[in-house]
Structures are given as structure tokens and as C-alpha cells.
């Protein structure tokens, strides 16, 4: 799984490279765009995701100790927190941006100065958070499978590798968000 996560670093890395480049060239447009995002929701969502990492880690620990009910509890909590994150991101933030006319290619209504560079910022916003959300959805699927397997008693202190490995994946997706949050929401400087 660590090797697979290395490939994921490179996958997101390509996007981050492009982002770093354009951010450097169009700083004012990117800052404007960043300020248009809702920091409170972003921060809250970050907390939700960090919480889910905690519950995931505790779930792995429960598996190591052979505590089946605790494991299932933590896996379900992780899943619920993950789904909350996706729901807030897609249902609240994306919907809001779409309705406000900040969805490039789909519904873009801003025509002020630098609007094309602003559009570029929102491109990256949607691509980055979109691909991140896709990884979370996949993670949610994996968690569901784990919950079912745990329910059937498939894990024990000697056999809990799938839980550990899925945990690594989940934490990685969290780490991507740890970098996305400041790079998307906080670069504008809100002073």
C-alpha cells in the first residue's frame, strides 16, 4: 500500500505542479478566488476529516486488539464522517459555487477584470477537490466492504492487514486535504 500511495503522491503531484505554476503567475486572481471560498465551511470540513482519521486509527487499533464491536463502531464512524465531508463539499460548497456562477465551463457568470485567470483558479479548485472527493468515495466503498467483513468476523489480531492497509489509504486522502485546505482557502489572506 505504501508503494501504491507513492503513485498517488505522483498523481496528485502533477495537479499540484500545475497549480503552483499558475498560482505564481496569477497571484491576484488566485487570491480573489480563494477569498470567494467559505473558510468556515472549509475549516469545519477539515476538522471532520481529521476526526475521521482519528476514528480510523482507533479502528485499526481495535482490530489489533481483536475487539470486533469496537472495530465496527469506529469503521462506521469513519464512514459517516467521510460521507459528511463529501456531502458538505458537494452539496453545500459546490452547489453554492455553481449557483453563484463560479463553475467554469458549466455555469460561469463573472466577467470582471482578470476573469479568465479567476476561471483558472476555479478550474483547479473543482479539479483538485473533485479528484480528492472521488478518492474519498472510493475510500467510502472500501470502508463499507471492511464493515461487512468485520461484521462477519473476518478480522483477528493475527489477520487484520486489510484494515491496516485501508487505514493507510484513508490517512493519505486526509493528508491530501491537509495540503488542499491552505492552498485553496487560505492563500488570499483575509485581512
Amino acid at each position, binding site marked *: 500500500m505504501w*508503494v*501504491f500511495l*507513492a*503513485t*498517488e503522491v*505522483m*498523481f*496528485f*503531484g*502533477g*495537479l499540484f*505542479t*500545475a497549480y503552483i*505554476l*499558475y498560482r505564481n*503567475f*496569477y497571484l491576484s486572481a488566485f487570491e480573489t478566488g480563494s477569498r470567494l471560498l467559505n473558510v468556515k465551511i472549509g475549516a469545519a470540513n477539515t476538522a471532520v476529516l481529521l476526526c475521521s482519521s482519528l476514528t480510523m486509527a482507533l479502528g485499526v487499533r481495535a482490530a489489533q486488539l481483536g475487539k470486533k464491536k469496537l472495530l465496527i463502531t469506529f469503521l462506521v464512524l469513519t464512514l459517516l464522517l467521510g460521507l459528511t465531508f463529501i456531502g458538505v463539499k458537494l452539496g453545500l460548497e459546490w452547489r453554492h459555487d455553481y449557483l453563484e456562477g463560479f463553475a*467554469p*465551463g*458549466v455555469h460561469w457568470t463573472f466577467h470582471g477584470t482578470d476573469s*479568465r*485567470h479567476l*476561471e*483558472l483558479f476555479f*478550474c*483547479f479548485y473543482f*479539479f483538485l477537490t473533485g*479528484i480528492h472527493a472521488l478518492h474519498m468515495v472510493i475510500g467510502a466503498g472500501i470502508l463499507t466492504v471492511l464493515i461487512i467483513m468485520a461484521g462477519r468476523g473476518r478480522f483477528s489480531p493475527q489477520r487484520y492487514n486489510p484494515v491496516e492497509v485501508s487505514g493507510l489509504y484513508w490517512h493519505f486522502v486526509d493528508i491530501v486535504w491537509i495540503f488542499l485546505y491552505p492552498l485553496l482557502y487560505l492563500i488570499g489572506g483575509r485581512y
Partner: protein
Amino acid sequence: MGTAVVEPGIESRVHYLNASYGIKSWLLTTDHKRIALLYLASITFFFFVGGSAAVLMRLNLISPQGALLEPATYNKLFSMHGIIMVFLFMIPSIPAVLGNFLVPLMIGARDLAFPRLNLLSWYVFVVGGCFTLYAVIAGGVDTGWTFYTPLSTTYSNTNVISAALGVFIAGFSSILTGLNFVVTIHKMRAPGLTWFRLPLFLWAIYATSIIQILGTPVLAITLTLVALERVFHVGVFDPAVGGDPILFQHLFWFYSHPAVYIMILPSMGVVSELVTAFSKKRIFGYKFIAFSSVAIAAISFLVWGHHMFVSGQSVYAGIVFSALSFAVAIPSAIKVFNWTATLYKGSVSYQAPMLYALGFIGLFTMGGLTGLFLATLAVDAHVHGTYFVVAHFHYIMVGGAVMGYMGGLHFWWPKITGRMYPDGWARLAAAIIFIGFNLTFFPQYMLGYLGMPRRYAVYAPEFQVLNVMSSAGASILGVGYLIPLVYMVWSMRYGPVAGPNPWGAKGLEWQTPSPPPTENFEETPKVTEEAYAYGTEETQVA
């Protein structure tokens, strides 16, 4: 087991080919050897599809006005030739076929670390291939295998997205195979098999796997961006919006340059095996070759800008990339010197695999040296985008990698099938391929130097003689590739039965019967000698 005979017939013995019958036993197998054969069938198919595109292209180029094809069609043909040959033939070829078959055998293991993931890899490859074939059938793609923006994102009205999707999916197959090999080689070596006793083929596969793991994801995200830009008409690579088309080239070539090393490194590994086996001699400079494989893998990631010297990249970056590109030639040269030194005073025999290996050394050297011409900024300004580049990479990929693949296929054929192919025909085919290849591609060096651009359906009349030579060579080359197809298939049923070690070679894979049983070894072997320990004990020839 069968009755006791001096040479047990393969019909009376249970091995991986006859352990179970029926299509399900093949399509749901987790045996790395069967999966290798599944890959063999798929990539051979794609080789001939890509080859047909090349045939049509060369037929068109017989006349300066391009009498056969419309330019738009020609564009689609060279694109499909590139996409299919690179992503569906060359990248998988040696790793997926020979690697899958040999990695567990060479380390004394029963299978790879993740056998089911291996099967998944094959299915993912097939799905990716299907999407690409769909793109062909639905009218093709005309962006070239390089998908440069803004043609691919904005202006092309061909099936860019399905082709990109096909490549994206096939890339996952590459990543998963690489992952499997890295874990297997780290964790599953037989007792006594230290890193520096590994056959050099495995060092090459290991280095290749590193490249596959670290590079392919960047291609994936790049193609995703192209697709997203095409669908949503946003401007990540569009200068009118502030995007940078060169950024696409950076991201694309970050993978695609290491990709060409994915294509050549395993072949170099094969050549190391062939050169020792057919000179009956220890390899010269084992550690140099092993480390040079890893060095090539590492440095390969630092040189991608040499594809962009004239694209608008900064001159200073160009200087850096040029210098680094010179550096990457050094480990390759080290290998060539070491192989040559291995041949010196060896007891050389000239069966077909050795002919391919010798062909590789000569043609790869030529291709590699012309690579240095291209790495030189000033020279590249003149020959970029001409047939010089085309000749260079075909010398490396066809004269190099494919010949290594053919040599390896012949060398391990008795192990894979338990039968020997007819060596007379094989040598004839090797000679035809060598002659056809040189006739096809050597004129292209001259054409490029004289200024004929690549990817053009028509050309200036003064280039016609060389073009006709090249097309004639292509027809010979095509015949050369068809001959092995015939006799290899023939040999599977009618070839003489081969014993465990028909070549008298060193290596764990030769210590088990041909074809191997499903579990590879009756009991886990123990390794006590260095690799290629020729001349230290009697090696059984059976």
C-alpha cells in the same frame, strides 16, 4: 506422475499448461505463467494492429504526393501506430510477458507477491486496449501519441477522449505490475539469494518497476486534465486564458521519457542473460550493470526537457536538460562495454537468441549515439521533428527493445512451452529482421538530416529514393516478423520436446522442468553460488 522413462514426455507429466483445462481456468487463473501467456496473446495482437498502421504509412510514403491516403487519415495512422505500439505493445512487452513468467522462477518462489492483482492487471490492460481500439474504430485520433495541446484539447475533432481513456486505464495495468514486481523481489527471494546474486534480468525489471510506479501516475493526471479541458472547455493549457501549452508538455514528458526507459531496460536485462548464456562465461562487471540499471531509472526522470528544446522552453532549462541527457547515456554505455567484454574470449555460439542479442548491441549503440546528437541543443534545433528523430527512436525501440524481446522469447521458449522452436528458421527470421530493419530505418537518418519532417503525409520529391528504400525495408521487416509467428505456433504442437535446460544456462528457472509445474519448484531451492557461475561446475544440458 508418468512411468519412469529416460526423458519424461511432457504429456505424462503435470505442469502449468495441462494442470487444468477450459477457458475459465485460463481467464480466472492466478498462475503468473498463464497470465504471462495471456499477455503474450494480447500484446502480439496489438503489435500486428500497430504494425498494420505502419505498413499503410510506409505504402503512402512511396510517392511524394502521398498517393494512398488523405493527410487527415495519415495523421490518424501515425497517431494510432504510436499509441498502440507504445502503450499496448512496448510498455507491457517484456515486463508483462517475460517478467511475469520469469520473476518468480528466477527467485525460486511459487508465484508473485499478489497473484490476484496480477490477473487484475491483465484485465485492466485488456479494458484499456478495448477503449483504444474503440477510438480506432470510431474514426481514430490525429493528435499523435503525444497528445500535444492545444490540438488535443481544443482543435481536434477526433476521438481524443476515448484514446486518452484507453491509455489511462492501460497505465494502471503498468503501475500494478510494477508494484507486484517490486514487492516480490524485495520479499520473496529464495534462501541464499542475496541482491548481488540476482540475475541481471531481475535488476532490470526492478529498475523498470520503479519507473512504472513513479512515472505513470503523472501521465494519468495529465491525460485527465486533457479530457477535462476538452469536456468543460476550461483553459488549463489554453494561452488565451493564461494557460500554458508547454505545461502539458512538461507533465506529459515527465512520464513519457522515463517510459522509453521502461521499454529498453528490460530488454537490456534480457541481453545480459543472453550474452552470458551464449558465451558460457560470467558477466563482466556484474555490479556495474546492476547499478547502471538503477542509475538509468533514476536519471531518466531528469531529462524530459530534451523533447522540448524547440517548443518554447527556456534556453536555460534547455541547457540543464541537455547536460543531464548526456549523463543518462553513460550507464547505457557502461552496459554495452560490459557486454562486449563478456563476449571476449567466451565460447560463443550463434543460435537465434544470440543473434538477436548481438543485433541489439549493435543497433542499440547506433541508436544511443544518435540520441547524443539529439541531446545536443544546437543540433536538435535542426533535426527536431524530422526523420532523424524517428530513426533514432526506432533504432532503440525496434533495433533494441524488440530484438531483445524476440531474443528473450526464443531463449525462454523451451521453458515456457516445453518445446523447441526450429533454430534454422529462427536464424533466418533474425537475419531478415536485421536486414529489413536497417533498410527501413537507416535511410531515415539521412532523410531527417536532409530535412524531411516527420508526421507528414507528403514530402519534397528529392526525398523519394530514400523513402522508397525505407518502404522496401519495411516490407522485408514485416515478413521477418511474420515468420516467427508461424514457426513459434507450429512448435507448440510439433516442435521437439525440450528438457529442463536445453541451453546449459545458469539460473534458477533452468533447474525446474520445462514447462514448469504450477507451483514452479518441487521444493524451494537454495542458492549457493553467484549469478552466471559458468565454468565452476558441470552444468547439465538436457
